[in-house]
């Protein structure tokens, strides 16, 4: 037993090691990524750790490990569970053998996501247990125990931390790390593992029969608990429970839900002893739906009554407001703070020297009237450069492009997609576009790494999650195998060549693929690549702002003239843009 100050995801990774996990796989996605990142960095680890190419792949691999009797976890962000939803639904039928945990990290307020979906709804849909921690200590303890819960019921267990669990920090009491003594052995049993109709009908019935015991067990395990104090009460779950505990009045009863499905009988015995009950949970009214089923004479305040929002994240001051509105005492009162000062925004921006900026600059020049479907990655920041017209989900750039082509949109359709996203779910779209005769240009922004989520390696990197050198996948060969005949590769920092290739693509019919390949500037910096910086010759600069409009954070404007700061990474693209040749390599005096 030792106390450490840890990131939530680090505490979760440690919990997995205390449970002697055998196999861990995942696809990076904020806020889930540091779980696998922590596990894969452990030297001499006794378990397998892998970055898979997408969440469905990660899910199925971890499920297979469970079927071989091992303990496994797959990790993803909430929207990744959509990709893995197909095996999820049926794995509830087949069940598991070794403990199998699905970590799906939700992102209320969409800090770093395209939506705010609630993974608890998936657990209800699939009829599997879901654990929803309210603190980091609980996250650590829950994931450690989730493997044996999975084994007890032969069911996958959905573990659902949120951003404020994954990316917050706390003192956490850790236990000892255990090493597995299991060996993989798949015991054939077609009635369990082959879901033909005759088998699956029986498996579905078995799944439904597990539900009552499961509900009771989750109360016995102490995940769902209450304390009765007065005639008013709060029912809450997830990280919102920690906000409630911070601000709740001392004579108010409290029920905390940490696990689903909820035992209705148990919850009803709490709710019906109160006159007013406030339900506090982020996103979907999963707890509230059950509270409303069992309310009796109690008056319920929550999302249905309009007191608690269905969207966004909660906070102590918001919870205090809901308590007051529901006529339930709070222990604190917060004054309205002053308004934030009006300052120039400092939004996230592509790095100085980022290859995506150059490619997107060229796209804008060549396809002035183009439509630009894009995808999920750092390059989504190309929105600021005017070359991101759509994003919906991973891999959808190519399919939205081919769909517009199919619909008959007459303008040039040029989509952008990163290397990792292309391998995740882009390939199918490309194959389909070629097969069905779309007229589109596909630009693969290949920086050889999954950058946005914290630089995880992928099949283009030439290295696995644990640092084993492997042959890098050939994107050119993949694209040609999909049937594309125009497949050209260029260094995006060579603006002349990239522009010429884009013009060539514009003039041709069919599906054209351009691979813009260059290492991410952050990878270069980590590999200690140093380039001479560029500087502006102020005798030549005419203050036309061509370089400033390029949008590189290393270029500033002072007294009407351009100035390059020490953020410069030496890519030299601004020197190619300058119409009067005023930018060149810095000369040390």
């Amino acid at each position: 037993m030792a106390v450490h100050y840890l990131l939530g995801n680090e505490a979760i990774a440690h919990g997995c090691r205390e449970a002697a996990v055998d196999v861990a796989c995942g696809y990076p996605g904020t806020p889930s990524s540091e779980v696998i990142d922590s596990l894969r960095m452990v030297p001499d680890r006794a378990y397998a750790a892998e970055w898979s190419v997408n969440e469905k792949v990660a899910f199925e691999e971890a499920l297979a490990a469970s079927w071989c009797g091992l303990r496994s976890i797959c990790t993803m962000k909430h929207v990744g569970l959509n990709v893995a939803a197909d095996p999820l639904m049926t794995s509830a039928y087949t069940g598991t053998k070794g403990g199998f945990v699905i970590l799906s990290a939700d992102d209320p307020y969409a800090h770093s996501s395209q939506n705010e979906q609630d993974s608890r709804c998936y657990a209800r849909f699939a009829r599997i247990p879901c654990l929803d921690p309210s603190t980091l200590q609980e996250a650590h303890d829950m994931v450690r125990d989730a493997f044996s819960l999975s084994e007890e019921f032969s069911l996958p267990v959905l573990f659902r931390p949120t951003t404020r669990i994954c990316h917050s920090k706390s003192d956490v009491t850790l236990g000892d790390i255990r090493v597995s003594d299991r060996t993989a052995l798949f015991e054939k049993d077609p009635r369990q593992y082959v879901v033909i109709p005759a088998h699956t009908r029986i498996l579905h019935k078995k799944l439904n029969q597990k539900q009552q015991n499961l509900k009771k067990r989750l109360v016995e395990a102490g995940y769902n608990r209450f304390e009765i104090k007065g005639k008013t009460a709060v029912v809450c779950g997830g990280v919102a429970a920690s906000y409630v505990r911070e601000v709740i009045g001392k004579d108010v009863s409290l029920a905390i839900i940490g696990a689903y499905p909820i035992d209705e009988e148990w919850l009803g015995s709490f709710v019906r002893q109160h006159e007013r009950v406030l339900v506090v949970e982020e996103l979907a009214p999963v707890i509230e739906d059950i509270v409303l089923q069992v309310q009796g004479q109690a008056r319920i305040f929550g999302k249905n009554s309009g007191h608690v929002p269905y969207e966004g994240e909660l906070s102590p001051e918001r919870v205090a407001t809901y308590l007051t509105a529901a006529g339930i005492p709070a222990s604190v009162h917060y004054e309205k703070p002053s308004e934030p000062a009006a300052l120039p925004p400092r939004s996230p921006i592509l790095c100085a020297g980022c290859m995506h900026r150059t490619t997107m600059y060229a796209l804008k020049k060549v396809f002035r009237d183009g439509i630009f479907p894009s995808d999920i990655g750092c390059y989504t920041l190309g929105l600021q450069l005017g070359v991101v017209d759509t994003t919906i989900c991973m891999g959808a750039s190519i399919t939205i492009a081919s769909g517009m082509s199919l619909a008959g949109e007459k303008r040039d359709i040029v989509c952008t997609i990163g290397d990792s996203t292309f391998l995740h779910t882009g390939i199918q779209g490309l194959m389909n576009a070629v097969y069905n005769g779309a007229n589109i240009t596909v630009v693969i922004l290949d920086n050889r790494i999954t950058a946005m989520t914290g630089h995880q390696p992928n099949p283009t990197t030439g290295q696995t999650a644990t640092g084993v050198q492997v042959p890098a996948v050939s994107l050119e060969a993949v694209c040609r195998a999909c049937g594309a005949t125009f497949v050209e590769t260029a260094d995006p920092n060579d603006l002349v060549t990239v522009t010429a290739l884009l013009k060539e693509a514009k003039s041709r019919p069919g599906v054209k693929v351009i691979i813009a390949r260059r290492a991410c500037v952050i990878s270069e910096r980590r590999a200690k690549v140093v380039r001479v910086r560029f500087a502006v010759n102020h005798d030549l600069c005419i203050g036309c702002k061509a370089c400033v409009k390029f949008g590189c954070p290393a270029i500033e404007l002072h007294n009407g003239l351009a100035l390059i700061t020490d953020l410069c990474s030496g890519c030299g693209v601004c020197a190619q843009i300058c119409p009067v040749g005023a930018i060149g390599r810095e000369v040390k005096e």
Partner: protein
Amino acid sequence: MSFDVMIVGVGGQGTILTSNIIGEACVLEGIPVRGAETHGMAQRGGSVESQIRIGQEYGPLIVPGTADLLLSFDLMEAVRAFHWLKKGGKIFTSKDFITPTSVFSQDFPAPDESMLLGMLGLDYVALDTLCIAEQAGSTLTQNVVLLGAASPSLPLSGDSLREAIRKTVPQKTIDMNLKAFEMGREAGSSQISAP
């Protein structure tokens, strides 16, 4: 009640490392601690914040208008985060700031140093952290300089913070960071005592 510290800056300035030092010091003293951080997309040159609550056993989020202390590695970010501070809360900031790209690319009006200092009210400690960090051995220690300056105002002993620095920073940079901490501590106290 916890002692709530808001640490702000621009991605890459070491807000997370600084909050880690404070968190480690809490663990050394056996005090419960909670922190919240910015990860992912916002790291790319955007405004970043770390919230750290010393002595807190519930959630990681500070309520706006209640923070006890603001630590900022960029003067403009100090102003941006000013509304988090309670009345009479303490401010320790670098006097330098990076002009956001939006000023150049979107023509946002840019305030200068004296305007920014004016927006912080009267009670603040603004240090030339760049100069002090250079003297300590590396500009990368600016965050520890500022932590040193703020350290007498934190409910943690100087020795716990020094031990936490040893446990948190890269091995090779321990001495340099400890020097930066002491220089910051001295610079901070001389500013506070000045009229």
